[in-house]
């Protein structure tokens, strides 16, 4: 509707405008209005609400009139909540293992795929494929592949004499999610690295060849520094992604067995949408958001410090 208003408004402007004059302020505003109104309604107002809710004690049952402010009580409760801290620990393990693993394997794969290879375009597409498929289809498939008794994964591992219990075992459920995350993210990382490698300084490699530098020396002094910004970008996006998703966990493990896969985002989802403790869930969401932001900034700072030293 706002769009029609914009179109209709345009001819009126034309009549009163002398050539070469800057456009009037409000026209630009009209162009932004449709998007701005939507962002206001569906992002900004919910954001303000979630911040307000974090300072209230409210569940769905008591209705909107039942909202009572309880100051910092939610945050004090979070600090004492063993469920929260267990979730933080699990999230740190999940993020701390899956993200570096994905990035390192993605880098290796990216470098490999940058060489002349038979059927290179197809290879690149194959590794990228897991990234674009919906989480339910992928999750259901892995759930059956990792069936402890008869799944294909354990049939293969039988050769080595190991039979992990995967999603049925509280020790193996988190590693199973990590395997899935790495499988899903490696191809994406390799593609990002590929496009960065294409901009790598060719003359430096030629100079290094003349100096007789080895493969490892070239990687350490040329490739790695030139890929550092890409690495940081990938770390940051993967950290944010890995610390937030709850879909796969809701689908496959529901946080279990026990609380073995109750990561922080799933804990928030459970608090909010299974126990309807909206005030507490909002507070958890807010704390998590600040925590992830801090982690992201730290990653970014660490890179900047290193870049300055070089």
């Amino acid at each position, binding site marked *: 509707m706002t769009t029609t208003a914009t179109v209709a408004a345009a001819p009126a402007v034309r009549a009163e405008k002398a050539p070469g004059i800057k456009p009037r302020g409000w026209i630009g505003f009209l162009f932004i209005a449709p998007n701005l109104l939507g962002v206001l309604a569906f992002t900004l107002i919910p954001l303000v609400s979630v911040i307000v809710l974090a300072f209230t004690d409210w569940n769905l049952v008591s209705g909107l009139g039942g909202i009572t402010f309880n100051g910092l009580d939610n945050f004090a409760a979070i600090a004492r909540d063993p469920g929260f801290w267990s979730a933080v620990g699990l999230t740190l393990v999940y993020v701390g293992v899956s993200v570096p693993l994905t990035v390192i394997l993605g880098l290796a794969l990216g470098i490999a795929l940058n*060489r002349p290879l038979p059927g290179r375009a197809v290879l690149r597409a194959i590794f990228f494929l897991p990234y674009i498929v*919906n989480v339910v289809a992928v999750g259901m498939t892995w759930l059956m592949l990792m069936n402890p008794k008869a799944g294909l994964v354990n049939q293969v591992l039988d050769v080595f004499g190991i039979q992990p219990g995967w999603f049925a075992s509280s020790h193996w459920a988190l590693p199973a999610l990590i395997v899935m995350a790495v499988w899903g993210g490696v191809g994406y990382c390799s593609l990002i690295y590929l496009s960065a490698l294409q901009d790598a300084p060719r003359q430096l490699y030629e100079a290094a060849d003349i100096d007789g530098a080895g493969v490892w020396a070239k990687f350490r002094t040329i490739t790695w520094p030139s890929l550092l910004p890409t690495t940081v970008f990938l770390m940051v996006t993967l950290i944010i992604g890995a610390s937030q998703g709850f879909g796969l966990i809701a689908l496959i493990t529901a946080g279990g067995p026990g609380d073995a896969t109750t990561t922080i985002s799933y804990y928030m989802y459970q608090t909010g949408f299974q126990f309807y403790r909206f005030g507490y869930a909002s507070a958890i969401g807010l704390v998590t958001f600040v925590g992830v932001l801090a982690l992201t900034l730290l990653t970014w700072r660490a890179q900047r410090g290193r870049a300055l030293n070089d």
Partner: protein
Amino acid sequence: MTDKAAKWYWGIPLWILAIAFLAPFAWMLSTALKADVDAYKIPMQWIPDPFQWDNFKTVLVGETSVLASFGRSVFVAALRVAGELLTATMAGYAFARMTFKGRDKLFLLYLATAIIPAQLLLVPRFIYFQKLGLYDTLWALILPGMFTVLGTFLMRQFFVSQPAEFAEAARMDGANEWQIFSRIYLPLATPVLSALGILAFVWSWNDYETPLVLISSPDNYTLPLSLTNFVDEQGQIAPGLTMAASVVSIVPVLLVFVLLQRRFIAAMTHTGIK
């Protein structure tokens, strides 16, 4: 080692790795065409015997058909893509090429909003949509997806890189602002528009978490939710039907990927967001 030998020296291990990567998809397809009793056969039987085409028949036209939810996913994706393209392009253009009061402050606000995770907003959205009567309707999925900060940001980055002289010249000739936008700058934006369109489609098509929270009745399930229809109350999965429905759910994204591969990859790699 000759160049050609080197190519295969690296090529063979990579192809083996690629086939291992594809194994879950191969398993999905193979199981989709099998009777349930054969799904966990040891050793694994890659070629179904006999081919159980009935699985596809059941998930497409049978009692548990996913066609209706497929249609809902198409409807949601179409409106989201159209809305996103329209509102993000106009806003991105104005942020880049038009001057008005408070523009830069507003853009800063947009940038700040971009880092807010969608998960954080689910609780208030859940409450609002219940109050507005949008909870458990497809509009709960469509509306927030039509107005995104990220799309606006993407379009702004593109329009900023376009020369301002076009607009100045057109203004001299008496063109109005809408004409300058729609006739001069918009046609230049076709590659970015298709990239954003692809992204918006994939976001919408694969979205599981939003409908998980905002949709409750099976009559409103989108495709990812309806894939869970083939799991019984004890958590037992019907392998053949689940995998057949999964294959059906993958086909549209796969088609877009194969047909528009170069653009698809550019879109994914340039924004870095799924």
